[in-house]
């Protein structure tokens, strides 16, 4: 295996591009790029966490965006009630997501296959409607975040570049964490359970509890992405956990490449950049994007990362 295979090259270029983006945005005088890519990076964190359970663990959650919502509501509600310290808000976002993941995971992991897909959707929808019912916090409209999380002068989230780099650092940390995780003993159990659950039991693994822990870890990371999202948009609303948002996350992971460390990032960049670019060309951009997705599924197994990996052999 050559060190500079096409796949590695793309990843290196992508990472370098992400690192240098604020400079480019500055030089080119288009700060909107920074906004666009901050959003992409945040959603890539969420997609990477989904990849942990879906790509590596075979647990297809159709309700993963619920943690985006829980994370952002934790920040939003704290801010609304006058608690503006990020040292309180963010741990709370993480803890709330972990707790929710623990509860729905404990119930959902009893089911398999498409039933698992649908039960996770059901729980996410319930959370969505609970959020709509939160009259004090804007109900269906959501609420404007009066001020971003404060970190006692450590970092100013209102500084767009600083905020971008914080998100980027957290993305890299997440990718690294997931990579270490899947190559640890724990990761082997999770992947083994995806590959052959029955055999895992036969050789003596209590699969359920490992899966549950994995499910909670993924939910927790995504909750953090939710806290970032609230700070990014200065706005919190139930829309963040609507099922279509969960679908977007799945599409990013599948498009980029499942069970690949950088797949979700590639998928997030590809999907959102594609949306932005196509919608610049025509108002009817979805008529191009739709068949494109279909073709990728039909002729490119393993997503974009899969194509890159195959091109290496060619």
């Amino acid at each position, binding site marked *: 295996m050559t060190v500079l295979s096409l796949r590695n090259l793309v990843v290196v270029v992508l990472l370098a591009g992400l690192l240098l983006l604020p400079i480019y945005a500055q030089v080119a005088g288009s700060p909107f790029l920074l906004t666009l890519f901050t959003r992409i990076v945040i959603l890539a964190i969420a997609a990477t966490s989904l990849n942990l359970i879906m790509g590596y663990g075979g647990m297809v959650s159709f309700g993963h965006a619920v943690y985006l919502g829980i994370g952002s509501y934790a920040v939003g509600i704290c801010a609304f009630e006058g608690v503006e310290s990020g040292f309180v808000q963010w741990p709370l976002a993480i803890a709330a997501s972990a707790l929710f993941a623990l509860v729905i995971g404990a119930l959902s992991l*009893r*089911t398999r296959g*498409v039933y698992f897909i649908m039960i996770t959707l059901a729980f996410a929808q319930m959370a969505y409607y609970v959020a709509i019912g939160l009259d004090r916090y804007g109900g269906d409209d959501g609420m404007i975040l009066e001020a971003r999380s404060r970190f006692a002068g450590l970092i100013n989230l209102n500084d767009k570049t600083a905020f971008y780099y914080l998100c980027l650092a957290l993305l890299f940390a997440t990718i690294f964490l997931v990579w270490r995780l899947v190559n640890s003993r724990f990761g082997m159990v999770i992947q083994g359970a995806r590959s052959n659950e029955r055999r895992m039991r036969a050789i003596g693994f209590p699969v359920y509890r490992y899966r549950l822990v994995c499910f909670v870890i993924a939910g927790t990371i995504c909750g953090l992405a939710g806290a970032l999202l609230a700070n990014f948009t200065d706005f919190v609303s139930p829309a963040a956990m609507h099922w*279509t948002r969960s679908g977007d996350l799945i599409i990013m992971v599948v498009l980029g490449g499942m069970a690949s460390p950088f797949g979700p990032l590639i998928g997030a960049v590809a999907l959102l950049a594609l949306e932005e670019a196509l919608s610049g060309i025509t108002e009817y951009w979805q008529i191009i994007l*739709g068949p494109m997705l*279909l073709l990728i599924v039909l002729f490119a197994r393993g997503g974009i990362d899969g194509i890159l990996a195959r091109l290496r052999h060619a």
Partner: protein
Amino acid sequence: MLLFIEQCLNGLQLGLLLFLLAAGLTLIFGIMDLVNLAHGSFYMLGAYFAATFAVMTDSFVLAALLAMLATLVVGMAVEVIAMRRLYGRDHLDHVLATFGLILFFNEFVRLAWGPEGRNIPLPSWLNTSIELLPGVPYSAYRLSIIVVALAVAFLLYLIVMRTRLGMLIRAGASNREMIGALGVNIKLLYTLIFGVGAALAGLAGLMQGAILTAQIGMGENILILAFVVIIIGGIGSIRGAFIASIMVGLIDTVGRSYLPEFFKLALSNEAAATAGPAMSSMLIYLLMALVLVVRPEGLFPAGGR
């Protein structure tokens, strides 16, 4: 009491409409093991076709029949062009591919029919109300939906339980390899099932379209409900889909009408008015989660019979 009966009727109507959609979905899922998110697109196409044919033919019934035929053709074409390449693939591939189809069909309709939606004009004999219970007029058209859907359910029951085709369908839903062993032209059978499923979705769409008008994206929200139905009922089971759709229809409608009052007992008026609708929208998901916690493969798993 009369109101309660009326609400049950409303719920029954919604449930039966869901059944039309869910029947095809559960068969396609059960037999071809295909997760078809684009099923809602056929629902939408059915409504748009009916709107166009109604203007052309000036007859609602004729338009409905033509629209079903048209969705049947579109469904079979989609199967031949795209879907059959997806059999045996991962469910996630299905999700991504059929999501792409949704985008395509939505934009296609927007290009072909424009963004503003279409009205499906009803004949005057349907556009009235009938006094079903003393003092309670009920929409004749909603009543006709109940009748048509029940007729379709009965017809499906006859086909599935009494014919050779039905035997193949039942065999396929519980054990996919078996149909191949019986020496049947599977490709044709699959195309046919997919087309019929699409036509049923089209029927549901045009029936609902006459109340709600044909709209872009009208299929997506009801699609999730249809998935809830087939999961509760058990994938591949027509009987399960029937029972589950009526359950979902009743719970949704009755919950929507009484839950807010119920909340008023505990909460302030305004909080109840907001929390009530939110909670009643949650009910069906609560139902599905409960069913799955107790019976992880739905109420009537097709393999279990």
